[in-house]
């Protein structure tokens, strides 16, 4: 039980990092989606129920700090987690590199999804801004994901989380 709370605290710390430190480390006004990287990593490494629960928590934290429609990440993060769990039964995702590549594609998919949502809400964003966000965010998140993966492994090793 205590270990679950510690993992929740770790996710909260990652969301804080995203909202504070990475606001000053933007790449062409784009921030990495560290919580999405966490969701993908957890979907690969944790048991399905735990992964879904923690991806839901990640979604709550992301929506809590964000200014967009509340609930979008609460829906999206468990959805990606569920799809990755399904995918991991068909192909092996145990390799770290496979996980990192998956983060890149899931990030692109998520941004396309959000862009469609904005379009249906009548919010217009130029193609230049859309492509800039979609591509740079995916690259930035992928570049930062080994750091998240390493921190997560270090954390798991120290609290002996299974």
């Amino acid at each position, binding site marked *: 039980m205590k270990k679950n709370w510690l993992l929740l605290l770790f996710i909260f710390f990652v*969301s*804080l990092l*995203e*909202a*504070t430190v*990475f*606001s000053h480390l*933007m790449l062409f*006004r*784009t*921030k990495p*989606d560290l*919580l999405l990287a966490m969701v993908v990593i957890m979907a690969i490494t944790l048991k399905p129920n735990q992964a879904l629960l923690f991806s839901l928590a990640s979604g709550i934290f*992301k929506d809590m*700090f*964000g*200014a*967009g429609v509340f609930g979008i990440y609460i829906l999206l993060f468990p959805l990606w987690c569920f799809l990755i769990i399904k995918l991991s039964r068909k192909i092996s995702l145990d390799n770290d590199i496979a996980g990192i590549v998956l983060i890149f594609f899931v990030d692109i998919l998520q*941004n396309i999804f*959000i*862009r469609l949502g*904005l379009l249906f809400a009548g*919010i*217009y*964003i*130029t193609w*230049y*801004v859309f492509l*800039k*966000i979609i591509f740079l*965010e995916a690259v930035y998140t992928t570049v930062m994901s080994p750091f998240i993966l390493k921190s997560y492994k270090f954390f798991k090793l120290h609290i002996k989380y299974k």
Partner: protein
Amino acid sequence: MVFYHRNYVQNQKLKKEIDNLRRAFNEATEIYFENKRLKELLIFKKKSPYRFITSRVIGRDPDNWSAALIIDKGKSSGIKKGFVCITYLGLVGRVIESGDNISKIMMINDPNLGVSAIVQRSRQEGLVSGSLSGSLIMRYLSKESDIKINDNIVTSGLTENYPKGLLIGTVAGIGEDLSGLSRYAIIHPSVNLATLEEVLVIIP
């Protein structure tokens, strides 16, 4: 040998001193810039007819699809949802959520936020909204609208809580809609929204 040791110790001592001085210099530079910013805010606060709450930016929206700030003041300081947020340079955004000690501000470069605005020179009306990039878009300008590059854009006072005449930015470009029925203007915001550290919340 004795001299070598004496010089070595002296060198280490001087290196430590340089590190300390460098740190002190950095801190002093940071304080100097903070002092400069706060002084400008104070001058503006004294001159302005509005009542303000000064607050510090403590976080930003983690999402790339919206633009928001988190400030260190909330309901306990009198900040409520809908209050307008500015700096001495111009409009920043609007309070969308207010907790006890923190508030969330949606910035003008967020596409979800629309502000009724006018061209200061010709009083031509339009709607300014964000584009998630460094610039804003002023829409619904008629084809015959009198608008030029470098014109100042200010709030019209028609949107709830926004006082009339707050500077939003200057016109950087003018274009025509795909339909050909209206024009739009690209606005360069007067406030650098990416580097905000302190903001003023207007109490209506």
